[in-house]
């Protein structure tokens, strides 16, 4: 037995819903990456899993021609992108409502994730992100700190993921 207590304040892991924020899927061929980056004010990273942030807007490279961009409420990314469309054809699709985002924090957060995520989450560098699975749901996992994660889940999968998370939290609280 460990000496973990059932105190709410000392909860080994917290799960919070985050408010929706503008979220865009950007697809553009490598030749036009820089142009788009310039238009959006982001130096779009080229390594899958790498992130870059500027002025509260953050871009995550998900594939050789795919970036996920999260911006503060009220940010208009569509207009600057549209301005370079003729020179740098691309697709910028609003997916703000496709996923919901959970924030997972606390000392036991790696255990929580390891319950259902086959990826070596502990090995993810802080400041990186990855498209992976949680049980059978595709998720994007952002590591913001050693024990601070965000998880984007397709909306309809959220009840299933939420139910799993609550089971695992109870398990962690039981201390075994």
């Amino acid at each position, binding site marked *: 037995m460990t000496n973990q207590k059932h105190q709410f304040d000392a909860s080994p892991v917290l799960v919070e819903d985050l408010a929706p924020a503008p979220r865009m899927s950007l*697809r553009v061929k490598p030749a036009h990456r820089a142009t788009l980056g310039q238009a959006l004010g982001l130096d779009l990273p080229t390594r899958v899993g790498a992130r870059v942030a500027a002025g509260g807007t953050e871009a995550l490279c998900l594939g050789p021609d795919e970036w996920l961009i999260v911006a503060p409420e009220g940010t208009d990314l569509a207009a600057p992108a549209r301005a370079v469309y003729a020179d740098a054809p691309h697709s910028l699709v609003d997916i703000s409502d496709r996923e919901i985002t959970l924030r997972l924090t606390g000392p036991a957060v790696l255990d929580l994730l390891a319950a259902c995520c086959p990826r070596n989450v502990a090995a993810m560098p802080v400041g990186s992100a990855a498209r992976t699975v949680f049980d059978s749901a595709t998720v994007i996992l952002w590591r913001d700190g050693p024990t601070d994660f965000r998880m984007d889940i397709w909306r309809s999968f959220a009840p299933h993921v939420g139910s799993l998370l609550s089971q695992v939290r109870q398990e962690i609280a039981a201390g075994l």
Partner: protein
Amino acid sequence: MSRYRIPGKGRVDHSAPVSFTFDGKTYRGLRGDSVASALLANGVHLMGRSFKYHRPRGAVSAGSEEPNALIGTSRGAGRFEPNTRATVQELRAGLVTESQNKWPNLSFDVGAINDRAYMLFSAGFYYKTFMWPKSFWDKIYEPVIRGAAGLGKSPTEPDPDHYASRYLHTDVLIVGAGPAGIAAALSAAQSGADVTLVDENPEMGGSLLSDPAVQIDGKPAWDWVEGQLGRLRAAGVRLMTRTTAIGYYHQNMVGLCQRLTDHLDNPPKGAPRERMWRVRAGQVVLAQGALEKPLVFDGNDRPGVMLASAAQTYLHKYGVKVGNNPAVITSHDSAWYAAFDLSDNGAKVAAIIDTRDSVRPDLAEGARKRGIEVLNGHTVTTTKGRLRVKSVRAAPVRGTHVGTGRSIPCDCLLMSGGWTPSLHLFSHTKGSLAWDGASNTFLPDRKTEECEIAGAGRGLWGYEAVLADGAAAGLRALEGLGRAGHEGRFTVANDRPGTGVSHTELPTDGNAGKARAFIDFQNDVTAKDIRLAVREGMRSIEHVKRYTTNGMATDQGKMSNINGLMIAADALGKQPPQVGLTTFRPPYTPTSFGAFCGYLRGETFQLTRKTPIDPWAEANGAVFEPVAQWRRAWYFPKPGEDMHAAVLRECKATRASLGIFDASTLGKIEVAGPDAVEFMNRMYTNPWTKLAPGRCRYGLLLGEDGFIRDDGVIGRLSPDLFHVTTTTGGAARVLTMMEDYLQTEWPELDVWLTSTTEQWATVALNGPNALTMLKPLVEGVNWDDFPHMSCAECTVAGLPARLFRLSFTGEVGFEVNVPARHGLTLWKALMEAGKPYDICPYGTETMHVLRAEKGYIIVGQDTDGTVTPADAGLEWAIGKAKKDFVGKRSLSRPDIVAKGRKQLVGLLTEDGSLLQEGAQIVLDPNQPKPMKMVGHVTSSYQSTMGHPIAMAVIEGGFDKMGETVFIPMPDGVRKAKITSTVFYDPQNERLKA
């Protein structure tokens, strides 16, 4: 305290008594006991009845390989478990246990009549005995055999416990925390490597816990173990007890089952009973040790006959003497130490019977010093005693001659036939084994995974050798990770090295044909059965195994495989490797279904997707049906309504005024880019170039084979942007197919695909009042130019929306898409605005009926992967002028254009009865069976038109309009007329309103 417990001895807590029951009787054990050790401490050896012959049996081992002492355990309702190994189950307060396979009770069992009739139950008896008369098989033999077969009672209640799962990535996983495993962990836990050490037992230390007199680096074994475990813990090594490595899979994935609560008196609330770990290890060190082999002689299964190492474990770990007057029969040095230790703890050892003519002088001296009689070059020919061994008969062997024997009284008999390295996990990797003639065992040979095998698991013996080997293996594992470290060295005093010889059955002067010399205790297989199998033609050990069932019980032959092989090889006159070794399969030891199941039960049994409007449907009494991964509202019954009544009401309300439907599950794909229209032209059969922005079109998607794969209405929002919809079930498949073509066939196109299924919540409005009701809520649409099959970006009820005017019902229809977070708000706003029109929420069943009345197909229901556009009457959807599209070439293949293909038609029954979906159709109901079936019913519903309607695929159906076909059903043959598939409003007047 009982007379078999030695006060103060062992690793049990003598100050903490624990009471439990066995077959209704209360016993006392100690904290730290296993059920078996607690029973033995109470002088109870009889723990069960054997599987086939119902022979009395006791614990033969002290570990997870136990074949005999299988009991039922219970901790209340739903928590009964059959076939728990008494040697593994730790004692906990209030544990209720019972013996199995006995009636009326354990000491007097009627089923034991089987034992008298053993001649009838020889190997393969069920293949021979129950052959005739044939008619007896179903009614008599099989039910009786099934009733008698199986060991233990299955639980009948749902298991209320939780089971957990966990993934783990570790640099080095070490399986087995005996001396080799601990030494390996000490080597591996250097240079910052992440190390995990697991052991199936409650405590780490392995054989050292049963050999406390051994000294390592000047420390007594137990102190050394404690010290090293402390070092490992301090180095950050993950130490996991009660954790069995059950399987070794590809690329160094090892499954671990961790038992968390079965040993606890009061498990914490919410704690899982077991946790399955899926470990991906950089390197694996297998330090599983070796299992002692029984010797094979008549009466070797009597309670009180057990492995010598088990007696040693009971003595040192649990402080239990298994008997006061033990005899020993051995062919290996190790059993001598067990005899010495028992003697040193007050037992009077009756004799050490060794099959070898001479033994090491120090062993002989040890026996002499203790006054133990030694019978070298002897065999054991039989044992006596009904429920407990009372005597053993030993006889001298000279060459092949067995001399006159004599009976030696004893209260237990310890046997050792040598040791078998545990190669189960290694075998899971398909690593090859090599036969070692010197030790008569298989040893690991060629490896297929990044693993090391250390210690007794590869045939080594003696603590110094095993520790050195473990240290070397741990270092190799570390170096395999590209890290460096130094190798630990250990000096051992009071080591217990040993060698032995191997036997088939022990020689006897009795009638070998009557000997009950057991090999597989759990399945009641004797040496005689193996020889019989060979006489009857079995040549491979795999056949011998299946014919005799040797090694096929839940212990997977941990004790019996090598003895069975040796005897089969002897009977065949071959070397053992020529006869082969049976395959080990996961799991290593029996594992609960719950552990495999993990979280996937109850509401998380399977992923269920829910729409944003699902909570409203649930609150409003919807009955749901699963559609792909989704749960969708099927229909909304009002009090007293059955499904039929509810669906008919929903259909009529929609046709009469207004229906509302949650269509959020429709797949949606954003196709964007300068080449979007070119891409659409290539993917779909339809022409897209001339579709103006703001207009929609029904799109048909084929496979390369020309058969229908998917369909859906597609809107062009701008020259470079299409909003594609797919079927609910086809969403992921269609996107994958499109991406495949885009990435592999047409990478030059500037077009990108994004799944927006979940971005939008979609609400469908249908009915003659749909337009009237919706108009006031919409801003940004020019209604003068918004005919059927239009689309627009606008607002609906103040929410940003994509509005489609289309119909899947035949009525005026709209699909309103809003960002998913607003889905429920939109739904409620529409319900409110629809009140004056008696708006009626409807589910998928009504949707199906309404579309069927219009002859709209559902891909996957009316098509089955062999239906072309022409077969479905959809040739109009093909852009004939297009140069190419996916599937175009196939549409001109001879068998695709041939006459007589199955074509989609309507059916109306003559008697107005409802046809069954899937029912087969014939042209002549009087033809001889088997009849020629010309098609089948694909859709069938009660309709709003007062009679049922159906759709069917029928060979040459388009040329048979008006003809009668027949549908033979169990309750009679139905007659139906072939019609058009469009039953309702064939002129599409209602869409134009």
